[in-house]
């Protein structure tokens, strides 16, 4: 799936058409967003069925409440927020929490070691080191870095998804990067001159 923020122009038109009850537009919104929603959702839970159930609920509710939605709502951020909300609710329900317990929200940003495949040993060590460094980040730093590097969102977009202001979004990303860099610096003895040609995805 192509990241749909590159064809934003048609998005607002699509949203507008959907708000007037167009079922085709609804389907296109689903098709355009389902992959990135699924991936984003998989950061909050490793249970793929739970994430799919929540996507189901988000779209059903989106359609149900469409008459009350705002024309200025941006589809993608709106769906992201709705999905995150829905997953956290589902997790707390499945754990049958009493009113005193808060749901411990996790953010699964790290790659598993098996996923870190590269033919170059030095490069692999470096990538593993970064993975280790990621585990030291706060949940919000992880989410900010994920939104920046995996989804390629800009600071104002990260701010909207995470419900913080522009400056906080910037800080989350900057401090996250600094933390990873500092960790790598203090744990690495390697000097890198190797051309990194790992292909993403």
């Amino acid at each position, binding site marked *: 799936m192509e990241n749909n923020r590159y064809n934003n122009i048609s998005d607002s038109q699509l949203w507008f058409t959907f708000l007037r009850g167009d079922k085709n537009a609804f389907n296109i919104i689903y*098709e355009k967003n389902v992959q990135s929603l699924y991936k984003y959702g*998989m950061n909050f839970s490793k249970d793929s069925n739970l994430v*799919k159930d929540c996507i189901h609920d988000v779209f059903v509710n989106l359609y149900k409440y469409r008459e009350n939605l705002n024309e200025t709502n941006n589809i993608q951020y709106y769906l992201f927020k709705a999905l995150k909300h829905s997953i956290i609710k589902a997790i707390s329900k499945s754990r049958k929490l009493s009113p005193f317990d*808060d749901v411990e929200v996790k953010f699964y940003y790290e790659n598993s070691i098996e*996923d870190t495949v590269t033919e170059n040993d030095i490069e692999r060590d470096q990538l593993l080191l970064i993975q280790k460094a990621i585990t030291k980040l706060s949940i919000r730093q992880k989410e900010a870095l994920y939104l920046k590097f995996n989804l390629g969102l800009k600071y104002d977009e990260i701010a909207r998804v995470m419900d913080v202001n522009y400056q906080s979004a910037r800080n989350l990303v*900057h401090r996250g990067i600094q933390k990873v860099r500092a960790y790598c610096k203090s744990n690495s003895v390697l000097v*890198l001159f190797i051309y990194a040609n790992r292909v993403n995805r």
Partner: protein
Amino acid sequence: MSFFEQHNLDSLIRDQKFFEWVLRPTEELNEYWTNYIHENPSIHSQINEARLFINGLVKIEEDLSEEEVESLWSTIDGTLFSQKRKIFSLPRWVAAASIVFVLAISGVLIHQYLIQHVAEIDYSQVVRLNPSDNEITLFLSDSTKESFSSDEVDISYNENGVLLNGIGKVHSSDKIEKYEDSEELNQLVVPFGKHSNITLSDGTKIWLNSGSRAIYPVVFTKKYREIYIEGEAYLEVAHNAGQPFYVKTDEVKVKVLGTKFNICDYPNDRFSSIVLVEGKVQASVGKEEVILTPNQLLSLEKLSGDVSLENANVLEYISWKDGWLYCNKEKLENIIVKLSRVYNIEFKIEDQEINTLTLSGKLDLKADCAEVMKSIALTAPIKYEIDNGVIKLEMK
């Protein structure tokens, strides 16, 4: 990693154009960066290091397969549009609920069910499917129930959890001791068109609006008091600092220390809301916690989880408990939703323009529906027609 000047490497990593190139290279970006390296040959190794760093930060993710995308869509489509399919694609809790529903009818297991699930207010999802013969119904924890044909019922418990006014005579106090560690729950269901009052064993008063449900322990035996509300309720909570009071709905939980407030969370509404009249409450919505002071309105958009806090005229939100509806430039469509609940009547809007109208004033909900419609039609440029229990609205 410390080989190069930290500053340059950091700014490269954060550079939008740079990581766009690393992650989603295009011809244009390739050209730009090739030229850049050509002009600044010393930067070459830094670029490689930054590339590796960014690649390390990218999570490797799996797409949904085409079949998964398709089958997920068909369940969404089925839930929304296909009557037949709906039965098979209902969420899991509905299926669970149907089973319990059958058991409830046979009147055998509901007691055990209630006892087992005391701490989990979540079970309210199950009971919302209970049969509604359109009478106010009190479900007791010993699996008996009592229905009332009147439009309003006053229910009260003494401090031992014994129902007063001759309701639920089977209830005896030795039963309470049996379940001391797992509170006995009662449940009051008020259909549309009716309303009720409850006085709980601790002295807390609840006004329950039309189409609402309250689930509460007969006696509060735990370290905290916890009740569940679906729909709309106004509460005056009895102060007891040693035993905090929690009100839960499907969307919010409110921590209370002796106070008066209104809470509204109807399953079909887009927003949930809390309005504080007196005292102090702390509302938790997902991860967020908000403290309300008097005359503040907290509203939650359920779908996105967006929360907003603003000042409000309390009267508009609580006057329903005294049988009034205060409107201050209130949208007619919102008023109609409220009226349809109070009178259990369906409205049909023939003219979309009606949704843009607003209304100010006071409606007497103790009067019958026709009276109320008459007074609305006097102020707003609309006409109405009552046809087979449906009220049709048109612009004049």
